[in-house]
Each structure stands twice: as C-alpha cells, then as structure tokens.
C-alpha cells in the first residue's frame, strides 16, 4: 500500500502555490499585504516554521544516536527525509520573498563582473544562506549514505527490470563488504557528530535574523537556544503527524510502536516546557528591562492588543496543552497524540507569526505604526503550495525508498523480540555479583 494514492489531493495546493509564485515574480511583492512597516509577514513566518520542522530528522538521527536512544531506529529514516523536504520548502520563502528573485544569486560570494564586489559576511541573512545550504547538503549526505545499504537490499530483491535498474543505480554498487561497513560506521558517527552542532547552529542563525536587530521584541539574547528548543518541539510534532499517518497506511505498527510514540511525546513535553520558560523569561525581561519600547511590544501589542489572540493561541498550543502529556495514558493514546501534534504545529506557526509581525508592526516611531496585517490570497497560496511540495515529496519517498532504516533495524532486532525477552527474564533474576562476574570484560 502506498501513500501515493493521496497525491491527487495535493495537486491543487501545488498548482495554487506555483501560480502565487508566478504572480509574485511578475507583478511584485506589492500584491502581498506587507507594507513599509511590516516588511516580513507570512513569508518569513513560513520560512522559520518549515526550517523548524526540518530540525527533527537530523536531531533524531544525530543527537539521539549520540545519546544511544535505541528507539530512534524506527523513525529516523522517514524523519530525515522529512527534514530534507521541509528544508526545501523553507528555502523557497527567503528566495521568493526577495523583491528581485532573478538577482538572488547576488548572495553567493563571488568576485563578480562589477569588480570584486563581495557580499556582506556580517549579515545574518547571509549566515542563513550558508547555514541552510550547509544543513541541506549535510542532511542529504547523511540521509543518503544511510540509504545506500538499504537500496542495495531492495536491489537484490527487485523483481522487475525497471526496479533493478533504478535501485541498481541508487545503491551505488554496495556489496556489504566488512571494510565498507567499517568505513560506513565511522562516516555515520562523524556525520552525526557534525550534524549535532549543525542542527543547533541552523536555528540559532535563523534566530540571529531577529535577535541581532534593534527591533523591540526581536532583539533578545535568549533567542538562540529558545529557537532551537522550539524547532525540536515543532519538528517532533511534525514527525508525529507524518509517522502516525505512515504507520496507519503502511501498517508499520510493529516497527513504529507505542513506545516510539511515547518517547517522542516526552520530548514534546520537555521542549514545550523549555519554550514556555523562554516565553515567561521574555515577558519578565520586557518588564524588568525598563525599556518602554520593549515593554509595549510585549504587554501592549502581544498579550493584549489586536494580535493578542495570536499570542494566546501560541501560549495555549505550545505551553499549556502539551502539559497534558505528563499523563502516561495520554502519551500512549494514538488519536490524542495525532491531534496534539497538529495543535503544536499550529502553535509553533503562531509563535513565529507573533515574533515577526507583532514586533515590527509597531516599533519605535508612532507615525510609522502600521495597520492590522492580514495576509493576501497570494501569501496564503504560496504557503499552501509548499504543503503540496512537502507531501508530494514525502509520498514519493515513501513509494520509492524504504521508510524504515532496514540495516539498522536488523541491528536492533538482536536486542528485542521474544528470545531476547526470555533472556532478559533470566537476567532479571540473577544477583548483581553473579551477573557482573559473567560479564566481566
């Protein structure tokens, strides 16, 4: 069974998105409801949102690998794929939010024909260019190097010529030689080690886009770790959403167990609470700092004021509702988890919206204060378009590539299953001294 049968329902958002982008490029950003005060709205909100989602995959495969959390193997491959597709979606926004997309290559550092005019290496947006492209590349390499042995497994089971050709090409001639495995292990470990700080750096740099500025509500030092926590939070929520669907449709209940779901819910409640502390810290500092602009940004325009509803949506979805996961029963409830995963995604979207829009719409000088910002149909269309792209890519992936890391699962199967449980029962009953003696190094 394949998820691809849902593809037709995605055609509409994709086409919608394409047309929105076409209009933006031909006629201009003026069709969006941004203005001289609100320079960024849905575009950058969506960018940050997608990038945040794109953190979970690498996080699961890298950090949890280093922390030896065995449960990650069930979900890591699909989560990594999700990462790559989410970053692809994210990348579109900073590109197409430019006034002159056709000159987007100006951000690349090369000595151009106008003389050695370089880029501004001190601009957070340029750091973004480096961070997002590095992250995309490294995630892709990490994901693909893990896929090679699995592709080889499928290649050797393939029945049709087309499949033999396709999997033959993508498996790079993998044989499973011991030396290759040794190098492969070393590669995975180092890539995991590199990806861990990388994944933190990406959202850190995204947060620098705001935190380096002088805009009240943007400039705050807690942003880097707080954005990272938020990214993990939203990323895990998106993994839950997708995995629960994949699990259901492809009948992977034995591979993605309630244990996996519960573990991810624990991460969600942890990161949700970290984010919550950060929200409260910001609120406190806005008062404590003694700057009127900062105070107004939080107390007049965020928790109250015309955008108050978005702030409270964010608070409810991100901080209050995940606390329900303290209950073990709810953590292991699939339907509830699915609903919560969507709630968290909505909440995290609003977090970025609140940060971006409520900060710029009224900053320093009252004469420039802006009106209430509503997105135009083209901004919404563009956003929906990335959904189409994301799910199309994900469904194609689930059709043509293994959603479960085959080789890794084989590795893990040694430490689970029935015979393992029997063995464990014996060990349970042994005394510590006896056990230790038997396992002396």
């Amino acid at each position, binding site marked *: 069974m394949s998820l691809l049968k849902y593809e037709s329902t995605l055609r509409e958002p994709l086409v919608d998105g394409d047309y929105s982008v076409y209009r933006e490029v031909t006629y201009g950003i003026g069709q969006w409801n941004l203005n001289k005060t609100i320079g960024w709205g849905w575009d950058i909100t969506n960018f940050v949102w997608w990038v945040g989602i794109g953190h979970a995959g690498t996080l699961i495969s890298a950090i949890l690998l280093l922390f030896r959390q065995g449960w990650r193997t069930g979900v890591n491959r699909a989560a990594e794929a999700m990462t790559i597709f989410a970053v692809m979606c994210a990348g579109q926004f900073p590109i197409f939010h430019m006034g002159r997309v056709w000159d987007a290559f100006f951000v690349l550092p090369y000595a151009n024909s106008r003389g050695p005019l*370089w880029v501004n290496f*001190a601009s957070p947006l340029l750091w973004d260019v480096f961070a997002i492209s590095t992250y995309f590349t490294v995630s892709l390499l990490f994901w693909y190097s893990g896929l090679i042995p699995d592709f080889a497994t499928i290649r050797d089971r393939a029945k049709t010529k087309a499949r033999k050709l396709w999997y033959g090409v993508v498996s790079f001639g993998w*044989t499973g030689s011991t030396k290759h495995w040794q*190098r492969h292990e070393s590669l995975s470990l180092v890539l995991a080690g590199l990806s861990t700080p990388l994944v933190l750096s990406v959202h850190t740099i995204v947060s620098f886009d705001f935190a380096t500025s002088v805009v009240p509500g943007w400039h705050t030092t807690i942003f880097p770790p707080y954005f990272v926590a938020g990214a993990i939070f939203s990323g895990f929520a998106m993994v839950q959403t997708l995995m629960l669907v994949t699990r259901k449709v492809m009948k992977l209940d034995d591979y993605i167990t309630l244990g996996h779901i519960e573990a991810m819910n624990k991460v969600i409640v942890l990161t949700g609470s970290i984010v919550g502390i950060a929200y409260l810290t910001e609120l406190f500092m806005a008062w404590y700092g003694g700057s009127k602009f900062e105070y107004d940004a939080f107390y007049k325009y965020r928790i109250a004021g015309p955008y108050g509803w978005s702030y409270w949506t964010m608070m409810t979805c991100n901080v209050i509702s995940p606390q329900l996961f303290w209950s073990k029963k709810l953590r292991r409830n699939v339907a509830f988890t699915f609903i919560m995963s969507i709630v968290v995604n909505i909440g995290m979207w609003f977090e970025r919206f609140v940060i971006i829009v409520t900060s710029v719409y009224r900053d320093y000088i009252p004469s420039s204060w802006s009106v209430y910002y509503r997105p135009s149909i083209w901004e919404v269309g563009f956003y929906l378009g990335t959904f189409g792209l994301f799910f199309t890519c994900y469904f194609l992936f689930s059709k043509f590539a293994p959603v479960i890391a085959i080789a890794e699962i084989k590795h893990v199967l040694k430490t689970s299953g029935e015979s393992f449980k029997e063995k464990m029962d014996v060990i349970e009953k042994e005394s510590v001294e006896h056990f230790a003696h038997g396992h002396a190094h």
Partner: protein
Amino acid sequence: MGQVKKYIVGCFDDEKVLFPAVKKVRAAGYKIQDVYTPMPIHGLDHALGMRETSLHTAGFIYGITGTTTALTCMSWVFTSDWPLNIGGKPHLPLPAFIPITFELTVLFAAVGMVLTFCYLCQLAPFVKKHHFHERATDDLMVMVIECTERTNEEEVKAMLNSNGAVEVNVQEAPVGWWLGRYDRPSKLFKTREVAY
C-alpha cells in the same frame, strides 16, 4: 576489470557461528577476501584483522581546511580586497565571522568525508561489482576466500561446512568494479552460472 579470480564462498546465518569460523579459517592460513554482511557487525573488522579506518582523521583535516578557508577568505575580502564601512562595525568583525566559519567547517568536513568514503569504497551510480550471494544484503553473512594455486578447495569447503556454513560453493569472479547496470547481465566477463 578484466582479471578473474576464483573464490570459495561460505554463507552463514548467525554471527555466533561466523566468528569462530572466521577465526579457524584464518588460523588455517587461508586469506579471507571479505565477509559480506547485511548489517554492520561489531568486531568483525577486528576479527578479520583489518586496521581501524582513518576516515575520521580525514574528516578532521577537511574540517580544519574549511575553517581556514572561511576565515582567510572573509578577512581578506573585508580588510584588503574591498574594505567597506558597513554599519560602523570594524573591518574585521570577528564575532560576525563565527557563524559562517562554523558552517563551512561542517560543510567541508561532511562533503569531503562522503566523497572520500565513496572513493575508498568505490561507490557511485552505475558502478557494478560482483555479488557472491544475493542474500548478502538480506540475512546471510557471506565469507569469501580467495583461491590460489596452493589452496585445497575441498579442504576449505569441508572446513566451512563443518563450521556451520549453510551454503558453500566456488565462484569465479572479476576483481574490482566496472560500469554496468543491474537490470542486465554483465557481458564484460566470462560468466559461469553462480548461485543466482
């Protein structure tokens, strides 16, 4: 490609059986060409007497290269090639160079390592190698022993059989890799029908 050698192939389905077998075969003085396994098996590389890979050292060197590239390029551009006054910041705004320096370190290390890995293992699209057993990527561990003129085939086969191999055969296979497609049989070497 071109050179064809003869190999004795023994297949195992349990790593607990494989390890003693590896030990015995090596003790008997035969050269194990390779063991093909569906998943990484810890300690097998040591059992086969392979040295540790230095791939991570290469990665470290690539990383350092990235760091230096980033720092020297940015410093050169900002201080000597075209110094601009941007926002009143110093011409060498070191804190602002850190993010890009970090990213390039990671990028160089990762890309360099993956390319080195592919080079060392000879992995690329359309690369084809001889596969001794199709289940080597599924659930069998396939031990391959190279035959020389001094190898007593029958003795080796018997040894493998007595050490728990579930399947033993002799194959002639080309050395190395060649360009080819998996949906077509290879015409590049004289075929002798093997296990599949």
